[in-house]
């Protein structure tokens, strides 16, 4: 008897400066390392004008079809502007993970994106200010059927680690919410992706691992009744 087929469709959306595509890559790489099928595709081109960067990830124990899809099992939203942009992917039962920190998302304006070449993925490194100024957090959409999970990722990163690892906190939270990705494999994916950086500054490795753990803990607390 063949194992039952399952497939997880994930949308991650945020500002160009928030490291959204890194989350997509890490999740897909971790799934691949876990022996699962994985497919990741960034939005690129004119589509990303408006500053919102989106990563599409599918993880399955069988073949994966088209790289894009209509409805997601998990939507992770990192900035207020991304709420509208991802509304179309919601369905009853979608897990809605969002950053509830009262911290301004590091927006990159359209002009910068235009000049920096809209033919590539969002120029995440161009954000001058990453998660340090006060502002409003993401307000999740209403409506029945969504499983809402808010975590203060940017706040935690700013207070306890470094504002730049807020995306890794989100990554840890997604891995836990999906229930199919061991954090060990996400760590291995981090190792692969940031091998050079970790070699030069070993303390970054520990910081990223802590961020993953922080994400796991935060989302478990958020799920507690």
């Amino acid at each position, binding site marked *: 008897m063949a194992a039952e087929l399952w497939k997880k469709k994930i949308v991650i959306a945020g500002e160009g400066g928030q490291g959204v595509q890194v989350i997509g*890559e890490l999740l897909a790489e971790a799934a*691949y390392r876990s022996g699962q099928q*994985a497919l990741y595709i960034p939005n*690129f081109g004119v589509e990303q004008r408006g500053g919102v960067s989106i990563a599409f990830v599918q993880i399955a124990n069988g073949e*994966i*079809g*088209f*790289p894009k*899809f209509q409805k997601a099992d998990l939507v992770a939203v990192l900035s207020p502007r991304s709420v509208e942009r991802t509304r179309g992917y919601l369905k009853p039962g979608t897990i809605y993970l969002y950053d509830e920190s009262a911290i301004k998302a590091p927006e990159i304006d359209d002009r910068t994106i235009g000049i920096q070449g809209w*033919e590539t993925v969002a120029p995440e490194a161009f954000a001058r200010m990453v998660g340090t100024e006060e502002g409003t957090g993401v307000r999740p959409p209403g409506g029945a059927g969504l499983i809402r999970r808010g975590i203060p990722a940017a706040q935690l990163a700013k207070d306890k680690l470094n504002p730049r690892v807020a995306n890794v906190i989100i990554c840890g939270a997604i891995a836990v919410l999906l229930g199919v990705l061991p954090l060990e494999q996400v760590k291995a994916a981090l190792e692969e992706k940031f091998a050079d950086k970790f070699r030069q500054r070993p303390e970054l490795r520990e910081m990223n691992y802590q961020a993953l753990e922080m994400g796991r803990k935060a989302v478990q607390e958020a799920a507690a009744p």
Partner: protein
Amino acid sequence: MFMTGNEVIAWAALAADADFMYGYPITPQNEIMHYWSRLAPHFGRGFLQTEDELSAGFTMLGGVLVGKKCFTATAGPGNILMQEPVAMAEMMRLPGVWVIQQRGGPSTATVIYSQQELRLTTTGGNGEGLRIVYSTSSHQELFEYTLKAFNVAWKYRFPTFVLGDGYQAKMRETVTLFRPEKRGWEMIPAEPILRGPGVPCIERDPVHLRNTFNIEEELYETLMKHVEDYERLTPEVVEWEAKVRADDTLLLVAHGIVGRAAKDAAERLQRDGWPVGYFRPVTVRPFPGEALRKIAAANPELRLLVVESAYGQLLSIVKAELYGYANPLETLLRPGVGVTTEEIEETVRRLEKREG
């Protein structure tokens, strides 16, 4: 391995023992050049960034003429320019591998994705479209058909294309890379067409190649030889993927990455008891028409649903191939945008007028 499609192609060219890539930047194929130019010096291979796609195509033919395995990659408006050197390759029977990562069209349109370069890639140029075009649907296929393209091109000496798209170019998924000899795949070496061994006039005749003819009959004679060669190779190179059962009433027909969505949709619907099959041409030129006609003839009631990210390019091929067959034809045409598994399923449910 887990990587992007553009990276896969660079590795495939390396595994195929390609000597040289000539290219000009255009999204979404750029990373093929990026990866290749990074890999090439470590493996004694060459790369030249040219002034445009005309030059990329013609410099590639120069490399091919002197006996090197060469390739190039382009998309969209670059593919239009590339048709000029492809036409010369067709006329003069010059091998070579041309990778196309389709983007939106017409014009500059989008840098993202489409299947709108099917017609241009299969039958572009001012001739008969004597070329071999593989439309891939996964990274594994990108790898294997790029390898295969190098062999087929040098075996039959027709321009050979790997037809991908922006999604396949940019997405990351699993692929198993291998050295072809480890799988027992024999790679055909390239031979010099010009400047081979020997002193011309003393040890051999000089080789003079041309693509201009003085009289109609001279052209006709030359061209018909190429046409005959092409027709002879057709049964040897056509490939397709299909799953159709005797009691199926609907057949999804799609190529490339949309073919993958069609397969996914068909398999899901079949599991729910729907009488739906699928047919995906892998060679879109030459087209596996014989195989499609067999399926159509076996069940005249079988309705076809042609799905593509273009406005009727695959459809016109299917119509031509099924001329004289009465099978009803439906379409889901989405020029320049993706077609998801869900959309295909919805269309099927609507067509079959049954509750999902």
